[in-house]
């Protein structure tokens, strides 16, 4: 018999290194004598979209198109340390460093433009497409190339704030910021074969502010899929320290047919210390998937599983124990 059930799980996640450890990102922003905008950070693109997010922030601040920005991010000899692409920290930490650097660069450019255009004040100066102009009299304008004799380079550092915890009581402020999530799932359990099918998911994900909703949704889909594997499929079968299933035909991860359609809801509540209010979400998106599935399985068949993954053999053995 096939039985359906629904379940929910809510989670939180503190991003960054945490516990008072210096969590530092450094960024360099420059405009060279040809007017090119170059950003030097070593934020690794592992697929999560770090490059895109960083360029979006720069483009926003400097009024540029995405293609106007040259990002140098793949070489230690050309970049400063931006910390690891982990702990869901690149958007927040490196984003903050980049934003600081680019904002300083922008103010330097405006200062230069003010002098160049012989204006008495910075008021009303706008930057767009590598041109600085006066909003109320757009003919008063100068492009980056004509403004700069020698390249302007700005280096900025961002360090996150956390408090080391007391060793005996754990009291402190171990992370900042925190990101919140809540997922609901519906499953169908075949009580004769023990097979669990996840048929629907609703995912509400706090992001602070979405820099790129497309990328966030992609993270939710991917996190859910990995959480689904964690809950009902994946286990390294270690016997006396030896991994017995060290290949993809033996270590099963979800295929396209195992993933349900998801309704993805981006919840925005900007964080004041974050660049544009954006918090890290790379890890938060996996957390509620597996526990929501476990709660849905209980709702479907009235059996609680205390050990994951809940594979068909476990389901059958529990159902038949109940009888």
């Amino acid at each position, binding site marked *: 018999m096939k039985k359906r059930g629904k379940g929910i799980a809510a989670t939180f996640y503190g991003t960054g290194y945490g516990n008072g450890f210096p969590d530092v990102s450094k960024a360099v922003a420059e405009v060279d004598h040809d007017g090119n905008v170059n950003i030097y950070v070593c934020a690794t693109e592992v697929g999560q979209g770090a490059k895109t997010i960083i360029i979006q922030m720069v483009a926003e601040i400097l009024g540029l198109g995405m293609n106007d920005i040259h990002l140098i991010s793949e070489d230690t000899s050309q970049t400063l340390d931006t910390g690891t692409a982990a702990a869901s920290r690149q958007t927040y930490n490196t984003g903050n460093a980049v934003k600081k650097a680019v904002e300083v660069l922008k103010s330097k450019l405006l200062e230069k433009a003010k002098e160049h255009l012989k204006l008495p004040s910075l008021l009303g100066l706008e930057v767009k497409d590598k041109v600085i102009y006066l909003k109320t009299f757009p003919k008063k304008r100068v492009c980056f190339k004509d403004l700069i004799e020698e390249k302007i380079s700005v280096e900025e550092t961002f360090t996150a704030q956390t408090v080391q915890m007391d060793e005996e009581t754990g009291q402190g402020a171990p992370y900042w910021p925190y990101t919140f999530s809540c997922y609901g799932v519906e499953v169908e359990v*075949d009580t*004769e*074969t*023990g*097979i669990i099918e996840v048929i629907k998911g609703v995912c509400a994900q706090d992001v602070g502010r979405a820099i790129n909703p497309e990328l966030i949704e992609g993270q939710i889909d991917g996190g859910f899929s990995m959480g689904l594997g964690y809950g009902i*499929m994946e286990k390294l079968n270690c016997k006396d320290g030896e991994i017995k299933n060290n290949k993809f*035909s033996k270590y*099963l991860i*979800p*295929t*396209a*047919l*195992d993933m349900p359609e998801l309704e993805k809801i981006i919840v925005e509540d900007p964080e004041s210390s974050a660049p544009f209010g954006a918090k890290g979400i790379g890890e938060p998106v996996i957390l509620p998937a597996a526990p929501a599935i476990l709660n849905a399985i209980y709702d479907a068949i009235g059996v609680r599983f205390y050990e994951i993954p809940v*594979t*068909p*053999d476990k389901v*059958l*053995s529990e159902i*038949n124990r109940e009888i």
Partner: protein
Amino acid sequence: MINKCINPKTVEEALDILESNGKDVKLIAGGTDLVIDLRNNKIDKNILMNISKLKELRFITIDENEITIGSGTKFIEIIENQHIKEKIVGLWKACKSVGSPQIRNMGTIGGNICNGSMAADSVPPLLALDATALIIGKNKTRSVPLRELYLDKGKVDIADDEILYAIKFHRLREKESISFEKLGLRKALAIARISCSIYINLENNSIKDIKIATGALGKYPQRENHIEKRLVNKKVDEIILKDIAEEMSKHVSKRLKGRSSRSFKSIAIKGIFAEAYKSAIKGANDESHKSHNK
């Protein structure tokens, strides 16, 4: 170590090579399992002969009484055959459940049989259809019932100088049908943990003939004669499926004694068997329905 690769142009050429050099030759058809074995140095022969391009082995012929499928026929070609899709549903479903589109596009039915794997998807329906294997060598041919082809785990009764040429079974008529059910641990790229195929022939609402075959429940796919005997000549309405499934479970439990999968498989077979049985009955009745409408 393979030190020679051969692409024969005809079956005859292939048989010549086998006759003179058979013990050193490993045949490769779709290669979906063999290439992995080659990489892992599990093949001790030194000549690799590719039979996947031999057109003479790639055919599906349907005559008045029989269906013959060439051993080099790819799963995709079986899946795309309209007659098999409509009438030999169990075989169609089994071929469709093989690995992934990529595997089905390369893998052949002959390779699936000759590999001797306990979990070969296409074999249970062929066993339930009581198929015959046609085996050829230089100046010789023989036919062996498929159920007698398996000698041991991974070992089939085909000599070094022979090739499996084709597989043959009778056409299904009114009131006949074949079903297939499989339990895999995910929805694609799944090796069968259990599979079950049932051929049924109904007459006046009783079971005139039934053949049940299972996969992944022993050294190789096999017929379940005990259960068949319990069902043959019984009125469909009088059969208590639950009891039969229970009996099936006991058989499986006995057969898998000492295996870690025993408790799971002996329970799960009940559901898989019941599903296969129900869809076989339904299929047999659907067929009659269709011919009535004609």
